[in-house]
């Protein structure tokens, strides 16, 4: 099923806007039009706190002259509004004498990897509200220690249209639905938190596939378990990372360092390393905007390039970086479909989509069994990297001690710290399981939805930033 969609802006208006953008002389011009409607509902303290609806609509116009980009945006999608934005963006080309340049656009079709069965805007608000109540009840039932529950529902529909002076015009209709639960448990040792979320590029059928009660119980269970947690160790120890959220390790530890903008500016530890062994031979890393329904998937990127699957590291050897339009153009190649932006008010840059490590051959339970002593990380919460040095941190939000090859006591939250290139070489076991998780990447202050994934794996030594003796 597909909802009927009126064009965001007439093609002839876009053509004239591009011509206006090129008037002072430019190498490239682009119009990005966006119309985004979103709904958010929050439950807190047992109450439906608020339902909010939002509507953002506008266009961003980019003009490139040599190595300089001019950019302007407007919420006014009339021909006049677009012409003014085009003029402002073109002002960087003040010296050029471009003359008239016509742009003839040839529409292309984009094929979405995700199918939407039930558009969230066709679902009554009351039905969405009920999901939150169900989650609240499930989180509290059977757990006297659950002191507080907050839950959030969100959906969005983002229609985009990208046209540029190369003659491209293409659109996409992106639907996202998400749900999250945060629980606070209270005990003799103080307060602890547990979190779980669902998020896919699908419609309301998300809730036919997943139960919000299960999501709530998972979050509650995490908070409860940590009430009896002991402080995490301090120092270097082997870690086994469960499949799923561990993908954040690759997003941070090497993904950002493989973005072509960091490479071009000599701000990456991976510069000049294509063809070299940069990781354990067990590591094959992919960035892929095409898997159905995943949080970082889309038909096209925000420069109109079809999403594709890019192998970044093959059997430990660095094969390629990720590219957006401008970085690729400089190198005389094509974009890898990694040009993304938060909204029409932002310039695109090189961004990841879904970044994941391919599964290996080992039984995940065996990996734990063959680890005499260490930390089992069941859930990672987020991280940060310095691409120039490769140093990164990421937080464990559900972790356990491994003693004599068995998962034993829960540990309190702590950060792990390591160096990307170093950690990739220290991966000595990769499981035959696999899972993905949703996330938000905040590069340069712009938030975009991304996916991460990996199989259960072991790193022979990472510094765990707890307070207990290792």
């Amino acid at each position, binding site marked *: 099923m597909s909802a009927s969609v009126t064009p965001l802006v007439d093609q002839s208006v876009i053509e004239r806007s591009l011509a206006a953008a090129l008037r002072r002389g430019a190498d490239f011009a682009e119009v990005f039009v966006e119309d985004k409607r979103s709904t958010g509902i929050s439950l807190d303290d047992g109450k439906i706190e*608020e*339902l909010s609806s*939002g509507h953002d609509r506008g266009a961003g116009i980019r003009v490139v002259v040599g190595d300089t980009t001019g950019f302007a*945006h407007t919420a006014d999608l009339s021909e006049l509004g677009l012409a003014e934005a085009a003029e*402002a963006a073109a002002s960087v080309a003040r010296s050029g004498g471009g003359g008239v340049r016509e742009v003839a656009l040839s529409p292309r079709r984009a094929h979405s990897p995700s199918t939407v069965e039930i558009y969230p805007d066709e679902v009554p608000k009351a039905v969405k509200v009920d999901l939150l109540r169900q989650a609240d009840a499930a989180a509290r039932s059977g757990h006297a220690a659950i002191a507080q529950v907050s839950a959030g529902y969100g959906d969005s529909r983002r229609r985009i249209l990208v046209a540029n002076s190369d003659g491209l015009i293409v659109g996409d209709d992106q639907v996202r639905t998400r749900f999250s639960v945060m629980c606070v448990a209270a005990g003799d040792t103080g307060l602890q938190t547990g979190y779980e979320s669902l998020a896919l590029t699908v419609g309301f059928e998300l809730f036919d596939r997943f139960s919000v009660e299960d999501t709530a119980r998972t979050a509650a269970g995490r908070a409860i378990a940590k009430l009896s947690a002991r402080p995490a160790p301090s120092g270097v120890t082997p870690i086994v990372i469960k499949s799923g959220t561990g993908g954040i390790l690759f997003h941070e530890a090497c993904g950002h360092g493989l973005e072509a903008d960091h490479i071009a500016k000599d701000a990456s530890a991976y510069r000049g390393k294509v063809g070299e062994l940069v990781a354990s031979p067990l590591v094959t890393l992919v960035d892929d905007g095409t898997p159905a329904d995943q949080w970082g998937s889309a038909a096209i990127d925000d420069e109109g390039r079809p999403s594709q699957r890019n192998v970044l590291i093959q059997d430990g050897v660095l094969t390629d970086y990720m590219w957006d339009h401008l970085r690729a153009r400089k190198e005389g190649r094509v974009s890898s479909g990694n040009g993304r932006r938060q909204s029409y008010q932002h310039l695109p840059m090189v961004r990841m989509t879904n970044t994941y490590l391919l599964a290996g051959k080992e039984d995940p339970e065996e990996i734990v069994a063959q680890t005499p002593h260490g930390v089992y990380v069941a859930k990672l919460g987020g991280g940060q990297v310095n691409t120039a040095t490769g140093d990164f941190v990421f937080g464990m939000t559900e972790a356990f001690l491994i003693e004599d090859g068995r998962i034993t006591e829960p540990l309190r939250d702590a950060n792990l710290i390591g160096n990307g290139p170093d950690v990739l070489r220290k991966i000595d076991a990769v499981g035959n399981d696999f899972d993905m998780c949703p996330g938000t990447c905040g590069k340069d202050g712009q938030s975009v939805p991304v996916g991460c994934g990996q199989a259960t794996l072991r790193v022979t030594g990472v510094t765990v930033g707890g307070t207990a003796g290792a």
Partner: protein
Amino acid sequence: MPDLLAIAERIAGAARPGEEVEAYVSWHRDTDVRAYDGEVESLSSAESAGIGVRVVVGGRQGFAYVGNLDERLAREVLDEARDNAGFATPDEHVGLARPDGVGAKPLELWDDGLSAFPTEAKVELALDLERRVRAGDPRIRQVVSADYGDAMGESAIVTSTGISASSRRTTCYLAADVVAGEGDDTQTGDGYTIGRGPEGLDVESAARDAIERATRLLGAKKPASARLDVVLDRRVTATLLAILAGTLSGEEVAKGRSLFTGRAGEEVAVAGVTLVDDPTNELAFGASTHDAEGLACRGNSLVEGGRLVGFLYDTYSARLAGTSSTASAVRGGFKSTPGVGARALSLVPGELDQAEIVALVGNGLLVQGISGVHSGVNAVSGDFSVGAQGLMIRDGALAEPVREVTIASTIQRMLQHVIAVGSDVEWLPSVAAGVSLAIADLAMSGT
């Protein structure tokens, strides 16, 4: 600039009997210039504006926004917010702010010089910053970005309950991200300068700051794990205070989600710790005449001589806790409803500058920067574990640089282990002021 107050008045004026309506209308114009390798890499300039409407009826709140000032769309937004209100759970504490008799202190947050400042001069500042950084030290290998940015903005809040407020501000900054190298070693640093207008910018200090932060870490090694005392550099303290702000939110406290729940009046820190949030201090980056619900901002004491004396409240959390708003409502713009937050937190300074504090500590770690704050600090449990880089302190002086370590403790424990607050208060682009801060006995995890 459009008349925001008039737009807000028309929307709030459409409230029906038994209904409270709040219109928040904002507009801003931003310019951003990025210099790279002697050229302008990007130049963007744009206006944006929007309207956020809250409707409260029968203790139920609904919200809607639109990224536009079109009044036809504004009426649709009001209808949508009204419809949304019907789905909330009735809550007697929900309601809009009402005038509380506190007058707004006039603040000079607007610099006319900014609107007259030509784009060419903005470009030149960014290029100048890049040149100074590149020329400033032979070990600077790369200036990843040298940015000039400015913003001028205005917002208006009008409610059907009698609130009518507007405020405007300008800000501008210069910032550089640099990579320094020596042999195989690479380190990064950043520096910035910020002001209400271009007159307030100090290009040279931003350049020097970026260079020093990157070069002084060259040669950094990962040290062995140890328990030690730390001195937090000013920026790091500001980050720590911003985290603390979340735990002092009256809403989080009332809902049992703060490590300070049930601890009002207790000695939560050593006697040398006094913490205030005073948005009426013009020096503060977050200074504001009004809060995000239109009440006049005022100074609020939170910790006095180590004793927990107050929390921050907006209208809702104040009613929940049976007290009155401290005018501490903040919002992320027209797209969100107000929540509780600090704007201008600062520790009352002590007597010693950073060098004297380093001498006092004798042996430990000067923390220049931290990372992983959002993943490693839990404001509910108080668990604190962050990545750190900085310089070892040996025999009262700065010694070798260290990297790839974490420092860990709990927020509760850190407050009880403050050794000294510096005299070097600096207002940063944050909700908190920076000041050097020495804390005893953290776990440093290295090799």
